[in-house]
């Protein structure tokens, strides 16, 4: 007799759970508001100040990054979505019901990962493309604009969504390890915000070597059309960030399997 519990049924179950709580819906709304809303504010401000902007800065101005800059805020929203997807099971105690229905913990983690990655990828790509197109429309006529017909620009917009998706998996993976929402969100925020401050306190020569490995700096590299000095190229940055997330995810999965629920 074949088992009724498969990866497919696990995904279906986790998809129902994912979309039937308000925290997910709110998280997605906030992701849209931060990405698109802040993108609109920032691009409008740039357009208004463009005529008086320092010509040297005008030369290095990146219209793609400027239109996507809302994701610097949205990255915390997606981290929270990923975290709560697992920590809410621990705070409510429903992890026990979940594991009696799906005793294979590896299958459970993969099911949750598929649901999280697929839904966050769709949400963040939509948000990134909307904010990009809206930003270019706001710039048009005054500020130089970028077009998706340029391969490097298209890559950058897509990688912006990939960056956010990876961060939601990082939040989820921290949740597997720490089990507590508040602890996870603190660690997640520290990784993105505090790490650069610590690196900033180090000697200049170290900074250049270290800061390019910071998650937020890798994100910056992924969302830059042209490679920044002291940064990795966008594909290299994607690989390094993916390795970080994969390591934290593996540790989290191992802990879920080994520990009592």
């Amino acid at each position, binding site marked *: 007799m074949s*088992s009724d519990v498969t990866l497919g049924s696990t995904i*279906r179950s986790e998809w129902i759970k994912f979309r039937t709580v308000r925290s997910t819906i709110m998280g997605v709304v906030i992701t849209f508001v931060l990405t698109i809303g802040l993108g609109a504010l920032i691009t409008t401000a740039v357009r208004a100040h463009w005529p008086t902007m320092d010509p040297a800065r005008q030369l290095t101005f990146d219209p793609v990054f400027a239109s996507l800059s809302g994701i610097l805020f949205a990255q915390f929203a997606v981290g929270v979505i990923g975290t709560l997807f697992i920590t809410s099971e621990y705070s409510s*105690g*429903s992890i*026990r019901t979940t594991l009696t229905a799906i005793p294979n913990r590896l299958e459970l983690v993969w099911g949750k990962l598929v649901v999280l990655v697929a839904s966050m990828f769709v949400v963040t790509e939509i948000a990134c493309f909307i904010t990009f197109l809206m930003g270019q429309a706001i710039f048009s006529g005054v500020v130089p604009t970028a077009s998706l017909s340029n391969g490097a620009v298209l890559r950058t917009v897509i990688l912006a969504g990939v960056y956010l998706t990876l961060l939601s998996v990082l939040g989820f993976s921290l949740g597997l390890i720490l089990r507590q929402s508040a602890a996870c969100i603190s660690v997640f925020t520290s990784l993105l915000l505090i790490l650069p401050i610590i690196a900033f306190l180090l000697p200049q020569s170290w900074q250049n070597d270290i800061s390019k490995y910071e998650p937020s700096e890798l994100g910056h590299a992924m969302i830059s059309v042209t490679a920044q000095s002291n940064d990795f190229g966008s594909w290299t940055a994607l690989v390094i960030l993916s390795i970080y997330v994969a390591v934290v995810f593996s540790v989290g999965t191992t802990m879920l399997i080994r520990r009592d629920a």
Partner: protein
Amino acid sequence: MIKIDHLTKRYGKTLAVDDLDFEVRPGVITGFLGPNGSGKSTTMRIILGLDHPTKGSATIEGKRYGELRDPLHEVGALLDAKAIHPGRSARNHLRALAASNRIPFSRVDEVLEFSGIGSVADKKVGDYSLGMSQRLGIAGALLGDPGVLLFDEPVNGLDPEGIRWIREFFRSLANEGRTVFVSSHLMSEMALSADQIIVIGRGKFITQGSVDALTASAKGTVFVRGANHPQLLAALRSHHGVVSEVNDEGLSVSDLTSEQIGQIAFDAGVALYELTPQRASLEEVYMDLTADAVEYGSTGARHE
């Protein structure tokens, strides 16, 4: 059938379950009784594969929980009624559970109606009373129509009507030949609803038997106060009376009726001042049984 085989669980320095060894058979309601913190919930979590045993094993129809191919079709469990995401509706909670084991959504509606919460199925679980949550937990346990059911303290929070409903429900499950394993810290509840009772304390096995047998063992004692206690004691012992307690006040005698004791005292020429049958309730038997385990857990007396 559930088989607990020399099960031991240690959390750090705490020995939560200490070499438990028993079976839970189908067709009867088995009560799992012990004071709070005696290891009942830990044992149930290990049966369900949630906690890993330190030693020994717990199996269902010969298989560890993790080896079950269709867990919800084989085992239904209610551990903690409030352990459901408070923001989700009862229907969506059950649908997510059903989907994981390929159970059709029509079954969700069935168990909601059966449990009496069909009319509030689309309300958030966080707004449920404990009694409604218990009913939702029972609905979840029934989803896969399993042959083995585990309930951890299911009557907590239920009103009298709910308690009567749940007793009849357990009875019908057992009559259908299912294995029904119900934990409680209340002997009075188990005396009314269970056929077989397993008593544990401080993680250790204390006793096991039918409710009737335990009630019989609760026949009680006769308190005797007389003129000459040593002489009375000797006379009673020569008639195979068991004297469980002797103090300045008097003697506690079992295995003899008050009529027999009165006759023995008369024959021995000892004047009696008091002769009082003391009928212990099942609750008192349970208190006696678990008193050791609660107060002096390390002695671990194993009565049979």
